[in-house]
């Protein structure tokens, strides 16, 4: 009951926050210099007043800003995200078209980073001060500090250009008509480099966080008590240290999961992965207001949703935390 009440309150708050995000983004985007009519006119290689006026009228940009805002909020409230000026298609269609690619990439990266990160963090904490701990810390630091685009390009040069093991770009081999397992294998081979590149950064974060959190918990009295009771080191680590050390990890996982739908701008750009991150970046450069706002709305909604799920997850992991 407590949890249901908590959920209800959080959902109402989430809707209010989402509304605030829509309004804020609406003005933020318009504060940037230039507008979509200008960009489209610029791309056309020529423009006259008639052409620009035609575009502004078509996009509704000739109306007062408060009218545009009212119209947009009303549209979003009826789950219509509007029409993309440049892509000449409904925003929701464009987002849904890109969603599978983005989810595949970000989920793969999420799983890689969580699994490897927590594993390395536990190993490092259990062997603190040894060469294994130093090595894991060093590797984590390297992946944490390396710029993503550089890592991506180096991965392409090594695995695609030099070794010719993996494809360098795209989501599938498009001139081949593959089906069944061959198709799955083809997509998987395209996924390896972008997912690893994206995943290794978060892996480093999880590893460092898990290690630090475990070391902190390991020094607490209840762990000493568990050891004094004669529990095996494995059980102490698993049931007492790790479970309590996971809270900050779950928080981070919640934050990362919230961004799954937002895609990964740099990774998607370098690997030509047809996801939402790229769509958003291109919409920003082209001042495609509706498309950009649409991606923001969907991404914000996901962040809010995962925040609620994270809060609920706390109550299961640590019964001392009460919902609400």
């Amino acid at each position, binding site marked *: 009951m407590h949890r249901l009440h908590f959920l209800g309150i959080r959902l109402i708050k989430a809707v209010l926050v989402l509304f605030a995000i829509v309004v804020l983004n609406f003005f933020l985007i318009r504060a940037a210099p230039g507008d979509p009519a200008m960009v489209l006119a610029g791309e056309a290689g020529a423009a006259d007043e008639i052409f620009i006026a035609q575009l502004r009228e078509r996009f509704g940009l000739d109306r007062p800003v408060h009218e545009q805002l009212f119209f947009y909020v009303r549209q979003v409230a009826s789950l219509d995200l509007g029409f993309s000026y440049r892509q000449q298609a409904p925003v929701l269609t464009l987002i849904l078209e890109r969603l599978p690619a983005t989810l595949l990439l970000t989920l793969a990266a999420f799983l890689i980073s969580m699994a490897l990160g927590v594993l390395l963090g536990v190993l490092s904490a259990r062997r603190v001060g040894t060469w294994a701990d130093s090595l894991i810390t060093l590797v984590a630091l390297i992946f944490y500090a390396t710029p993503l685009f550089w890592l991506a390009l180096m991965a392409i040069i090594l695995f695609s250009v030099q070794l010719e093991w993996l494809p*360098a770009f795209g989501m599938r081999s498009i*001139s081949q008509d593959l089906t069944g397992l061959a198709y799955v294998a083809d997509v998987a081979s395209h996924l390896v480099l972008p997912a690893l590149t994206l995943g290794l950064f978060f892996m480093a974060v999880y590893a460092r966080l898990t290690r630090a959190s475990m070391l902190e918990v390991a020094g607490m009295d209840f762990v000493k008590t568990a050891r004094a009771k004669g529990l095996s080191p494995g059980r102490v680590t698993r049931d007492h240290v790790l479970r309590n050390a996971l809270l900050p990890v779950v928080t981070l996982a919640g934050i990362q999961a919230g961004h799954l739908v937002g895609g990964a701008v740099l990774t998607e750009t370098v690997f030509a992965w047809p996801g939402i991150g790229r769509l958003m970046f291109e919409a920003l450069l082209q001042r495609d207001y509706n498309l950009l706002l649409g991606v923001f709305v969907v991404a914000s909604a996901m962040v809010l949703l995962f925040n609620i799920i994270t809060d609920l997850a706390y109550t299961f992991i640590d019964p001392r935390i009460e919902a609400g």
Partner: protein
Amino acid sequence: MRPTTSLLLGAVLAVYFAIMPLRVSAEPRSGGVINVVVQPEPPGLMLGLTQNGPTQMVAGNIYESLLRYDENLSPIQNLATSWDVSADGRVYTFTLKEDVRWHDGEAFTAHDVVFTVDTFLRETHPRLRVSLEHVERVEALGDHRVRFTLKQPFGPFLGIFEVGTMPMVPRHIYEGTEFRSNPANDTPIGTGPFKFKEWVKGSHIHLVRNDDYHVDGLPYLDEIYWHVIPDSSARAIAYETGKVDVLPGGSIETFDVERLRDLPNTKVTKKGWEYFAPHAFLWINNRTSPLSDPRFRRAIMYAMDRGFARDVVWNGFGTVAAGPVSSKTKFHSTDVRHYPYDPDKAKALLGEMGYDGRPIRLLPLPYGEAWQRWAEAVRQNLNEVGIQVELQATDVAGWNQRLNEWDFDLAFTYLYQFGDPALGVARTYVSSNIAKGSPWNNVAGYANSKVDELFARAAIAFPEENRQALYDELQQTVVEEVPVAWLLELEFPTIYRSNINDLVTTAIGLNDGFVDAWIED
């Protein structure tokens, strides 16, 4: 066998084997798939509605116009087989090819031409609209002849029948509809050598051979895939790893060209840009001091080492621009004042005018690394003669906004010339085009009544020989006053596999489609 006989036989065999490859390569063969890069992803493929570079590069395979142009900009037949011009230069009559069909099987006729020009493109095509101001009426004379009657002679008229300028649009699909929201825009129908098959947004566009194409035996290729790869390094790597076969001009950074050129089975051509003749220059805001002083503008010309920029920033691609009209465009003149790299002369001019060292703002063009480096080189050149320059970075939308609002001192740009000064040059210099709201206007704010008059007279002078003298005088005047600072006639090399033949055959290169291209075994 006697030694002389052996030698003779050996020589004959050597000659035979030497010419064998030539003989093979001279015989086009059908079939094959080509993978090409397109960047950025086009906003749409309906060429009548969208005329940006990527759209034209893909849709130039789907749509066609009445004429094509060879590298000397002479018209060659396409949908029109012949054309007559009246003695007074006002009436142009085109005879259209018969048995041409749209991709949906409908016949292409003169009525499509009249609808395209008079109704569709007059509404949707801002660049063509300027030229159509000269057209009094367009009439169909039966199904296969079209007559254009002009208000007065218009020199460049025969140059506007290129596919990006005047793409033919199917009347039976668009007449009486709202053009921009017609659902057919998603599945474009043209008369071109390739048909639209599929577009996976963010990934690729797939075109397939038009088996009913109006030229027997063409096209040779079965399919074309256009790959959307947003990062320029990734585009270069895509070629390097064999995933794409063609890198259209401008799709990679110039510093990657040399590396790719040295790869096996690779060719590079600078051809295919003659009609566009991309001309790079610095906008100079003529309205404000010290830029309003011609001596300051001349000092900028002398201060810039444009040869260095070509050799280092553009890896040797390009030609130092002599003035407003490119050497590839008609009526180019060399009889103008020259501005060699001469920092001392620049300093002398600045001293003579009493330049107070006031810093000026320079907007680089946000089109990639080469443009950024070029801006840094210009800043260094200007600093060396005592002009302090502040680089102000923007994105494309911001750059447009600053130009539209005249909020700059110097700004990089490049413009296409479209084969004729009346089409692509006059807009930069005539005072009637000084207006806020478009980066294609006379953004510099340059106004000279003599220049206005020369441009006006040269556009309508007839026959063509009469135009040269007017443009000669015009170029002398403009180059003297330096309303903008000319930089380079840009060259955008196209990189492709050596076994692809006849890829670039006209003055607009890949924008005319892959109609002649074929792959050697």
